[in-house]
């Protein structure tokens, strides 16, 4: 394959993968929703879960996006410095989104700011979002895909707390967001929390936290304990599916962290809706791929 053919091939594979993630949820999300469905017994929660599962079946059967808001596409790439297509990666991801927009189809969700018009192609200045992590001495490329819908983007918030406010302040910051904005963000939610040194470090971690599998834990014992405390705490509020009341409000709480300045605690929260359309694919240098999030996919 020539270099151009390789670029073409990876573009097509990414367009197909993005399209697939809009129609079928990742395995861990489906498993968690099945578990939560079993545990709810109120008539409203039951009718909501029945609708959700019928919808996911119909989406696959009719080959349509399961939710009409297919979001702004966001990619977190962990790219090896020796991955052959590194120079073309960002442009090919943009091209893949345009392709997926017409083939899947996806909703046109890119509005140019200030000029305030919809580009009609689902891409624009800086969209899709691409976050880079460069991996030295590697020839692989790992890509997380995410469809950031409007409803679950809205609760996003970040601030810097004074150390006196402590982790108690972090708790209040996260829980306040659940009762103010969480109801409308299509619970049961996956909640991502970043604890770091400033708004942008915390904010980025809060989104990366949403890429972690449901049921995974922060390697730090205290952070893992706080994940569990927040998960149980938010569930106890009783918001339930669609905010209409129920025993379970979250699919999980994932915390990501860095060290901080002694005078500041950066904290951010980001949520994923129940229709958490996250994908993860790893390419080797010959474009052989492994998909970790969705079983049985052929690109």
């Amino acid at each position, binding site marked *: 394959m020539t270099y151009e053919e390789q670029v073409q091939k990876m573009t097509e594979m990414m367009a197909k993968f993005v399209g697939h993630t809009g129609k079928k949820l990742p395995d861990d999300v489906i498993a968690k929703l099945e578990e939560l469905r079993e545990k709810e017994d109120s008539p*409203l929660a039951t009718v909501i879960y029945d609708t959700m599962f019928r919808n996911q079946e119909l989406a696959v059967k009719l080959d349509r996006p399961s939710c009409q808001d297919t979001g702004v596409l966001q990619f977190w790439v962990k790219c090896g410095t020796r991955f052959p297509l590194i120079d073309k990666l960002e442009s090919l991801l943009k091209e893949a989104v345009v392709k997926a927009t017409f083939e899947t189809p996806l909703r046109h969700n890119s509005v140019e700011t200030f000029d305030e018009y919809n580009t009609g192609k689902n891409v624009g200045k800086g969209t899709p979002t691409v976050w880079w992590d460069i991996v030295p001495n590697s020839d692989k490329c790992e890509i997380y895909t995410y469809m950031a819908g409007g409803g679950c983007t809205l609760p996003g918030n970040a601030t810097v707390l004074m150390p006196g406010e402590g982790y108690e302040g972090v708790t209040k910051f996260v829980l306040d967001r659940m009762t103010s904005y969480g109801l409308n963000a299509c619970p049961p939610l996956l909640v991502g929390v970043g604890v770091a040194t400033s708004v942008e470090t915390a904010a980025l971690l809060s989104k990366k936290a949403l890429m972690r599998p449901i049921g995974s834990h922060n390697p730090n014992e205290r952070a893992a304990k706080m994940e569990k405390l927040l998960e149980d705490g938010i569930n106890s509020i009783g918001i339930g599916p669609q905010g209409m009341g129920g025993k379970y409000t979250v699919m999980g709480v994932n915390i990501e962290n860095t060290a901080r300045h002694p005078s500041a605690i950066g904290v951010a929260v980001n949520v994923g809706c129940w229709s958490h359309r996250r994908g993860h694919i790893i390419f080797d240098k010959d474009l052989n791929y492994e998909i970790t999030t969705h079983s049985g996919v052929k690109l």
Partner: protein
Amino acid sequence: MVEYKDGKKILTTPISAEDLAGIKIGDIIYLSGSLTTCRDVAHRRVVEEGREIPVDVRNNAILHAGPIIRPLENDKFEMVSVGPTTSMRMEKFEYEFVKTTGVRVIVGKGGMKEQTAAACKDFGCIHAVIPAGNAVVAAVAVEEIVRAEWRDLGMPETLWNCRVKEFGPLIVSIDAQGRNYFEEKKIEYNKKKDEQVELISRQVGFIK
């Protein structure tokens, strides 16, 4: 008209104020007949610009939504995916909108506030939510897109006038008596949240 079929309570357009009298918050209903998508800019045009809505929604239903539409031949369209958008964005306009248009059923996502509740009570209207993220369930209940108006607003904001059959489940969040499911629930949620903040705070004193 209200009818019961296979254990489902179905509202069929045209809907009268009397049809809504027996419906309470938390009830699960379905809708058949005329349903028109109507969201931000359309509300602004009706309320702020004073323009006449080109689809008659009187005694019919609107849906706060921006769908994915596939154009067919002869100016016809197919509903691919449609789901509700956050209703709260329309709160600012909804009292005047209901008063002006005479709409009877507003379908959306999440709760609305005092102005909409007042409109529901004053003019005989309800707000209901369809479980969000279920765009295919909603789309297959659309039998036909009858008309498309205000197309200059683009795909999400166009008024897509649909004929629907047993569109739902719809969970009533504001009834025609003005009771508001989400606002009542929020009081409960906030109380429990304060308890949980206190409970968790006792266990996360990591800075010593």
